[in-house]
Structure formats: structure tokens, C-alpha cells
């Protein structure tokens, strides 16, 4: 098992280094960055803020990583957040409890996921086009639910999901970490992860090996829809209202970016949910640097773009190849499995 731990560590090392670097950057522009204090029964601090603010992206990431591993993409998650936020809000406004609202929202998210999955897996529409449909239509649907207004609510249970704390820790942090842990556990402790990677790499071969790729694809989009639902509820709960136009706006792109920063290929195949979650944290830490540095806000997006560009360049295949070549020119690297047998392998005669 230690070899597995080691390979996970090796896989996420680049993301850990980048995260550490961005956090140090935070510290440089704002020396109090790492200080955490406990008051009024809640922990406070910039670091906690980063973890809290990255919750929606991180939750989207869980589903998005799986979708991307199948060589797909889900552009609709931002719009699904708006739909599900509106669903939850309208349910509590109608007098239902927060738990019913949450379940209702997740069910609607699941429905959206099944729709995407149906278009991709059954009708074989390209994922980017298939999910674009709901991305465009989703905000319209959300507006129909909220009847064009920002639907506000005061249900304490629901608000606690976005702005509350449990034993002093903000709920969103607990939600995304738990969700990430459960998803990682399920895909790695069953063979689900391998099967998802297999259909992402070569669907024809996978089908001939007996994998039910159609069902698996629908499931992956379903999970993505459910993750979007949870993220949507948290965002709505945070502002105590469902904003059909702005909830989750452009967040699908942040989620995709986080998955990419996590080192997952958009061409499908090998994936790591943990690395994607680190990617989400990296994006939020970059946001934090910009805010804390006190730069005029008009610079924000440009600086964010530059930092992300730097991260992507470091991870680019060309640079990776360069690093590989530097290592490969050493004729007998020490960590190689075994010297290849140059002698012909004689068969017993």
C-alpha cells in the first residue's frame, strides 16, 4: 500500500508546490495571511477564507474531473447551479424544510446530469455541444423558477449550509472536503476509477472488454449535475437568495481550469480528484493574492490571467519534456526499476 501512497504523492507534488508558492506570495503581500484566530465560536483567518471561498469550484471539480476523464466536458454546471439554487430557494419560500430543499435541488441537479448524459452517451452528441444546450437554456429555466426576481429567503437551516459553521468550521469547507474524500474513496476503492479512465482512453476497446460505457457515461454526467446542485445550494445559501442571472456565472470555466491545473488531460484518461481540488485551492489563492495586494480592482483579471498562464506554462508538455530529457540524459538513473537484460532471453531447451 505504501507504494500507492507514494505514487499519489508523486502525482500531486507539482500542485502542492504551486499551491505553496502562491500561499507564500499571499504571505509576502500580506504578512498576517497565515494567522488564524478563534472568536464568537468560529475560526477566522485569510487561509480559512481561501478554503471557504473555493468551495463552489472545488465541489464542481469533483464531478468535472470525472467527466473530463471520460474525454468529455460539462459546460452546464454554472447554469445548473442557478437552476438548483432557485429550486432550493423556491422550496423553502413555499414553506418546505431545508432538508427537503436540499434533496429537491440535488434531484433537479441529477435530472440535469441525466439529460446531459443522455445527449452524450445515447445520442452521441459531442460533449461540448451537448452541455452547451443546458448552459444556454439553464439560466432561462432558473429565471422561470424565480419568476424573474432574486428569490430571497431566511430559512436558517438552509442559510447554515452556506454561511454557518459546525464546531467552528465554516460548513462549505466541511462539505467540499467530505465530498472530495467520498468521491476519491469510491473511485479508488472500487474499480470505477479504472473503468472511467478506460472509456476515456479508448471507448471501443473498453466496450469490447465488456465495459458498459453508455451507463458509465450517464453516471458521470449525473454525478457532475449533483455536484453542481450542491454548489448551487451553497452559493444561494451564502447570499440568502437565488440569483438566476449571476449564481455560478463563469464558474464552469473555473472548474475546468482547476481540473487542468490539477494536471488532468482534457483528452481523457488518467485523473486525480485530489489534484483537481488542489487546483481549485490554487485558483482561490490567486484571487486572494490579488485582493490582499491592494491592487486597483481593474488589474484583477489581468493579473489572474498572468498567474494562471505561468502555472500552465510550468505544467506544459514541452516544459515537462524538457525536464524529462534533462533526467533521461543520465544514462543510469538510480530510481529505475531494474537494468534491462541485454542478454537474449534464452528459452529452456
Amino acid at each position, binding site marked *: 500500500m505504501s507504494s500507492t501512497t507514494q505514487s499519489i504523492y508523486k502525482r500531486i507534488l507539482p500542485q502542492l508546490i504551486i499551491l505553496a508558492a502562491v500561499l507564500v506570495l499571499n504571505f509576502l503581500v500580506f504578512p498576517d495571511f497565515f494567522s488564524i484566530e478563534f472568536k464568537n465560536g468560529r475560526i477566522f483567518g485569510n487561509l480559512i477564507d481561501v478554503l471557504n471561498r473555493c468551495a463552489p469550484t472545488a465541489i464542481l471539480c469533483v464531478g468535472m474531473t470525472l467527466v473530463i476523464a471520460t474525454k468529455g466536458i460539462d459546460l452546464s454546471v454554472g447554469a445548473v447551479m442557478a437552476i438548483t439554487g432557485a429550486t432550493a430557494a423556491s422550496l423553502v419560500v413555499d414553506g418546505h424544510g431545508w432538508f427537503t430543499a436540499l434533496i429537491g435541488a440535488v434531484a433537479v441537479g441529477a435530472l440535469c446530469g441525466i439529460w446531459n448524459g443522455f445527449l452524450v452517451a445515447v445520442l452521441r452528441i459531442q460533449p461540448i455541444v451537448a452541455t452547451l444546450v443546458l448552459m444556454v437554456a439553464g439560466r432561462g429555466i432558473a429565471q422561470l423558477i424565480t419568476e424573474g426576481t432574486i428569490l430571497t429567503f431566511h430559512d436558517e437551516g438552509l442559510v447554515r449550509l452556506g454561511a454557518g459553521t459546525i464546531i467552528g468550521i465554516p460548513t462549505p469547507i466541511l462539505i467540499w472536503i467530505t465530498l472530495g474524500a467520498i468521491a476519491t474513496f469510491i473511485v479508488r476503492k472500487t*474499480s470505477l476509477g479504472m473503468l472511467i479512465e478506460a472509456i476515456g482512453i479508448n471507448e471501443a*476497446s473498453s466496450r*469490447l472488454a*465488456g465495459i458498459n460505457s453508455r451507463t458509465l457515461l450517464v453516471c458521470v454526467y449525473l454525478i457532475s449535475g449533483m455536484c453542481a446542485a450542491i454548489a448551487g445550494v451553497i452559493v444561494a445559501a451564502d447570499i440568502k437568495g437565488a440569483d438566476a442571472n449571476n449564481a455560478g456565472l463563469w464558474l464552469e470555466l473555473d472548474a475546468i481550469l482547476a481540473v487542468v491545473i490539477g494536471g488532468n488531460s482534457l483528452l481523457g484518461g488518467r485523473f486525480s480528484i485530489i489534484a483537481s481540488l488542489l487546483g481549485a485551492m490554487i485558483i482561490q489563492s490567486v484571487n486572494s493574492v490579488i485582493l490582499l495586494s491592494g491592487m486597483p480592482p481593474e488589474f484583477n483579471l489581468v493579473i489572474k490571467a498572468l498567474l494562471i498562464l505561468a502555472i500552465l506554462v510550468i505544467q506544459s508538455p514541452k516544459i515537462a519534456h524538457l525536464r524529462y530529457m534533462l533526467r*533521461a540524459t543520465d544514462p543510469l538513473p538510480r530510481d529505475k526499476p531494474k537494468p*534491462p537484460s*541485454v542478454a537474449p532471453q534464452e*528459452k529452456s531447451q
Partner: protein
Amino acid sequence: MTDTNGPMLHAKGVSKFFPGTIALDDVELVLHRGEVHALLGENGAGKSTLIKCLTGAYHRDAGQITLDGQDVSPGSTAESQSIGIGTVYQEVNLLPNLTIAENLFLGRQPTRYGFVSRKEMINGARKTLLEYGLNIDPSEPLNSYSVAIQQVVAIARAVEMSGKVLILDEPTASLDRDEVELVFSAIRKMKERGIAVVFITHFLDQVFEISDRATILRNGQVVGTRVLKDSNRKEIVTMMLGRQLEQKVHERKGGEAGEVLLEVTDLAKRGMIEPFSMKIHEGEVIGLAGLLGSGRTETANLLFGAVQSDQGKMKLRGKDTSINRPRDAIARRIGLCPEDRKSEGIIGNLSVRENIILALQVRQGWTRPIPRAKINEIAEHYVRALDIRLASLDMPIRLLSGGNQQKAILARWLATEPDLLILDEPTRGIDVGAHAEIIELIEKLRQNGMALVVASSELEELVAYSTRVIVLRDRQQVGELTGDKITADNIVHAIADEMPEAVN
């Protein structure tokens, strides 16, 4: 100035390392002017790595390459082309929708007043092609001609652009006899022009027919270079395999098959294959013979459910059953090694271990993962049993050579302990050694009571392992040969519609 007596190309001490393997170890290759030099070796011996180092597709890690007396170190295929080393690959690397003339002159079109001169281009192309014995219209699109002609056009283009060394990487792999002759006459023309030709192929007949010398590689090292007139097939094969390939005496232990395992009646798919019926017994190997497009692959796919049949009945051990998709077949202990290993067999980026375990894991269901220790045990068992050569079980399967990939796919199915194993062209594109091993394996599996259906275009091979041969023509079963009737001649007769001895 260049030295006209020395070799055209001299590669010395060329080495290339990959993580975990030494792909080339101190390799020396000498190419004389006007010689055809065969480069031989099993898959994975280092032929393609050597070629890639020569053409600059890879950077060599050590060694020296002298071209025409001057040190060269091409950094890209374009650079190697400009200094005189041209390459033609097995799959024609041209633009099929452009005309022959455009293909020949692409990137260096003759111009007049700054515009491409079509007339000059077509005349130039016609003249060039005549030199290769091709009297064809160069203004026609490339894809209106056969692969052989396309191959010659590719050779002509490479020679026109480079002109010192020409590397032909399996140029004849998909050609028939007459077409091979066309390519060979082009090669002879180049010999006359003093070009050094490197010829890579799996066909030993062709090596002896066209080549002057051969360099044999094994496990990344040069085993030796031989002048072919003074050598013989046996010596060359022995050098390639590193062991005496004992002449396999083929004695079939009778056709005594066991119980009927699978019985199909009038199975068909419109547009793919006409209704066919067959009984598959335990402990027999049914060979499917026929030309390309005769329905061999379609039969295999229908039996496995890779393609859904639109009529017909199936009985498994006497009970009615139906197989509509691969999952159904796997649940009934049937396996299929598909014809196209790359696009339908391997899952390139997954490890060899995962590729081997895949079908078994899928049959068990995703909720019941096979324990890590058990996976290793199974994978290691088959790597040993089938002699799969790899640096590590963790390496992506796409990095293995063709023969080893095929063995890994076989391992995937053997791990599921199938009752019926369907093999579609199990020996296509793999080297001599793996070839013999797979044929041996088929015989062994049959003796253990497994039923096998093997589709193959190689008659000798079918004769070697089949207990029964079903002959297909035009998407229909046209005959069946059993026992002593199974000879290459009889199969050819049956395919060609003259079956005096066949039992229908």
C-alpha cells in the same frame, strides 16, 4: 569535399535510453552507396528507435552519425530530409485528396512570376514518375490510385527531396505480389542512382529478393551484419530470435472434439454477413479462412456480440441464449481478441497490469475490486506464461511492441478463463518469435479443452492449428475442411470456388 569511396552513411556507437530500458546499445550501421540494406529484428528489437535516431525524430543519447563523410546530427525529420535522409512509412504519408503532381512538389512547387506553374509541375511529375516505371496521369488525385502506386509516389518524393539515404519502413506490408514488384522496381532504380536504401520488413522472402546486406538487431544491440548471398534464411532467423527455431513438426492429435459448446443457427446481419450456422465443440480450433472482406471478421464479431445480429438463434451447452453485446459474451465465458489491436484492443495509457486485469474486473462488477495482491499475481503469472517482455507492469501498454501488446490482450482474455476464445488475426503485424509462440499457445489451449475460433489470412498458420477450417467467400460460408483435407492448397481451392474435396 565528400569522400566518394567511403560509406554513404556510418552510424557508430548509437545509444538511446528510455526510462527502465536501453532501447539502443552501441549500435553500428554502415550503408554503402547503391546498396539495399535490410534492417531486421523482432518487434521491440530497436529497429524503429534506430530509424528515429537517424531521421532526427529522437535525439540519440550517444554515438556519431556520418553522412557522406560529414558528421551530422539532425534535430528533426525536416532537417534530416534537407541533408539527404528521406523516409517512407508503411502508411503512406501523403495527402490523398491532392493530385500526384501536387504531392510530389508540395512545399517546392515550380513557380512562374511568383505563381505556381501547374504545367511545369505536371510535366516534371510525369518525367519523374516515368523514371520509376509509372506511366500515369499526375493531375489525378492520389487516392484514385492503388496503395502500391501511392507508395512509389512517396518513394519518388522522398528521393527527389533527399537523395542520399532512403529509409523504407515496411513499405510492402499491405501490398499484394504484383504491387510488391512495382515497389521493388522503384527500389532497383534507386540502387542504380547510388542511393543507399534501408529496407525494413517482416517478410524474409522479400529481404532475400531485394537486399544486398542485412543488419540484425536484437534487444537493442547489433547481432551482426551479413552479406545475404552468402547467408541463408535459417542463419538470419536464428540471429533474429537468438535461439534455434526448431522446425515445428505438426501432428494434430486427431479431431476428437468434446461436447458442443456453442451452436448458432442462421445468425446474420444484413449488409455484413449472410445467415450462417455452426457448431463449436470444446477442444477444437475452428479456422475461418477467406479473403479480406469475405466475412471472417464479421463472423467473429457476431459470435461475440461486438456487432448485434438481426436474426438467428444461439444455444450455449444446449440451452437457448442470446448475445447482443460484448458484456453478454463475457458473462458466458467467451472472449475476443479483435483484429485491430491499437484501436479496439489495447487501452493505450493504462498500465499493462490494468490492461490484463480489465475484462476479469469488468465481469466481477465494479463494486467488487480484485485485491491488489491478486491482480499482481494474475498479471505476473501471464507475463511469465506468455513471455511478455516489459520493463515494468506499471508502464503504459502503448509503449510495448506489437507482439507484446498482442500477448497482453491474450492475457486479458485468458485471465477470464474463457470456454470459447475468438481470435481475429492474432498474428498480424507481430514478429516471428511472438508469432510462433502464439501458434503454440493456441495448440496448448485446445489441448486443455478450450474451444477456439481463429480468423486469419495466413493459410500456413490456419493449417498449423485448425482442427476444422470454415471457408468464407462473399460474406457466406462456402465450405468446410476437416482432418487431412486441411491443406493450404485445399483452402485456396475452396476460396477460389473449386472444391473437389471439400465437404459442404
